[in-house]
């Protein structure tokens, strides 16, 4: 009885809470200084052997998902829960202020919801072109209708917008717009505009009349044994650009070594190929997420915010009252 009482006293003590926070601070700083989530070989190439061993043994390369972090977070949860409960139980004291405990409650909700989120969150990222289809479940899918790239007058990206249609069994087609900072809900899945890429390419025709497509960075072998790599396409400014004004830079390669840089226009030849057409297409990077824990984290945030506001107000009143009494 005496031991369990002492144990409970220790578990809910502010001293233990502070030791755990200090431990969390030290380990978090170390984890922030070590690049997270890389392959084992990255650490082997960049750190001394002994440090690599420690990193991998303690899962420091994925610290915030490691057992060590979970244990510390779990202990903080118990310490905070017991301390808050004890404070609430002793609330008859005249000096009792409930608002810091509301903040504690919010932190507890966030910690618990964080665990739920780690266990239940599902996330998939896809690069998609206009016209492509993605099945969200057996009964629902989305179709990428249109990709829109808004630009500032100086050509820099202003917004990336993906227009999709959502189809579900026994339901009407829904048109949805997804843009940066404005995700959309398709069924139970939230879709985020996460990335964007402009792909450039050329259509090349060989001497037999066969046509191949080559995108930037791609390599194509010619009949003479040489290779050509498409480096860049130069599109002049303007909405409608005549084909003859577009040029493409190729690297001519032999035995994997660059032997020349050649720029040609539509209709001109390189290594036996004739450049027929240039293309510029956009690709959208969408993130598909379901996270049952996030609503509870948001609830925790609201609880903390209200606790902070009320603590702030009550503290200010107390200080002002004290100053009034002193004067």
């Amino acid at each position, binding site marked *: 009885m005496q031991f369990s009482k002492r144990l409970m006293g220790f578990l809910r003590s*502010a001293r233990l809470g502070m030791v755990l926070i*200090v431990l969390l601070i030290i380990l*978090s700083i170390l984890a922030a200084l070590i690049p997270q989530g890389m392959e084992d070989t990255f650490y082997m190439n960049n750190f001394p052997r002994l440090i690599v061993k420690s990193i991998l043994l303690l899962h420091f390369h994925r610290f915030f998902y490691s057992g060590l972090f979970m244990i510390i977070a779990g202990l903080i949860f118990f310490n905070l829960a017991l301390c808050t409960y004890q404070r609430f139980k002793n609330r008859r004291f005249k000096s009792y202020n409930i608002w810091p405990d509301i903040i504690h409650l919010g932190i507890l909700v966030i910690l618990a919801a964080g665990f739920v989120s780690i266990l239940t969150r599902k996330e998939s990222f896809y690069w998609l072109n206009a016209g492509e289809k993605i099945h969200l479940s057996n009964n629902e899918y989305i179709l990428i209708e249109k990709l829109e790239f808004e630009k500032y007058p100086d050509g820099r990206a202003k917004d990336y917008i993906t227009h999709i249609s959502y189809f579900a069994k026994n339901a009407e087609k829904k048109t949805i717009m997804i*843009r940066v900072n*404005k995700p959309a809900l398709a069924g139970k899945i939230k879709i985020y505009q996460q990335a964007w890429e402009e792909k450039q390419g050329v259509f090349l025709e060989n001497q037999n009349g066969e046509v191949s497509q080559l995108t930037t960075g791609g390599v194509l072998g010619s009949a003479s044994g040489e290779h050509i790599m498409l480096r860049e396409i130069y599109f002049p400014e303007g909405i409608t650009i005549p084909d003859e004004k577009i040029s493409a830079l190729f690297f001519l390669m032999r035995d994997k070594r660059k032997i020349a840089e050649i720029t040609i226009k539509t209709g001109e030849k390189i290594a036996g190929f004739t450049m027929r057409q240039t293309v510029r297409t956009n690709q959208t990077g969408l993130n598909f997420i379901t996270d049952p824990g*996030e609503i509870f984290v*948001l609830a925790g945030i609201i609880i903390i915010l209200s606790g902070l506001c009320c603590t702030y107000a009550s503290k200010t009143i107390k200080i002002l009252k004290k100053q009034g009494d002193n004067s």
Partner: protein
Amino acid sequence: MIPAFAFALFCAATILGVVGLFRRKPLLLQIILLAVIFLLAMGELVRRSIILKIPAMTNTFEAILFFSAMINLVIILYYIFSRRDAFLIFITSFISYVIFTLAFSPLISDALKPPIPALRSGWLFLHVSLTFVGEAFFAFAFGASVYYLVLKDEEKKKRIDKIIYHCIIAGYPLFTAGGLLFGAIWAHSAWGRLWGWDPKEIFSLVTFLVYTIYLHLKAMSKTANVYTVYVSILGFLLAIFTFFGVNFLLPGLHSYR
């Protein structure tokens, strides 16, 4: 042009701060100059906001102007209510001056560029402004902590300890709400996750935890003690590292310049 003029005024204010140290009383002219610098910095931010059509807090240059202006505002408010502690006002305005000077570093561009798509959000203003207002109070608490360490008079020490505490209880909720909570809500709408353990997020959390320790130490022992003062100093150094160090040394989603 405006920041350069403000910089010249800042140099003058710092010199007046040194004069105030010898007179053991803050000079009114120094405070007036700090107020003019505050107005110039805010004016420049408003000008940039009108051009950009969103709150101008999208790069380090603008963040520095705002941060420095907020520290000046805290100094001015303190002067209005106390009219003393020349050393405290000098050290805090010197911190503000050093931060302001960094805006002219070759590493920091003052180019007026429209923001990238991810920064076009209503949360930007709440997230950045509240964080820096909170950190401005932390800066004043840091100045007061340094002052505490050089003081010998116990009565004065008690008073300065109270100032540190009041600054931290003013800055803590603003920093927590702006830096952590509104940041998490914004990350949720931009990236689909509330928290991603990005270096900036980790160091913001660490800063929050250090000030949490400070508040709990104060709750445990009501009397002034030097340990809480050291914690206050550590907290501000971490806040500064979170702002500058993470931007330039640790790559991540927040490594904007």
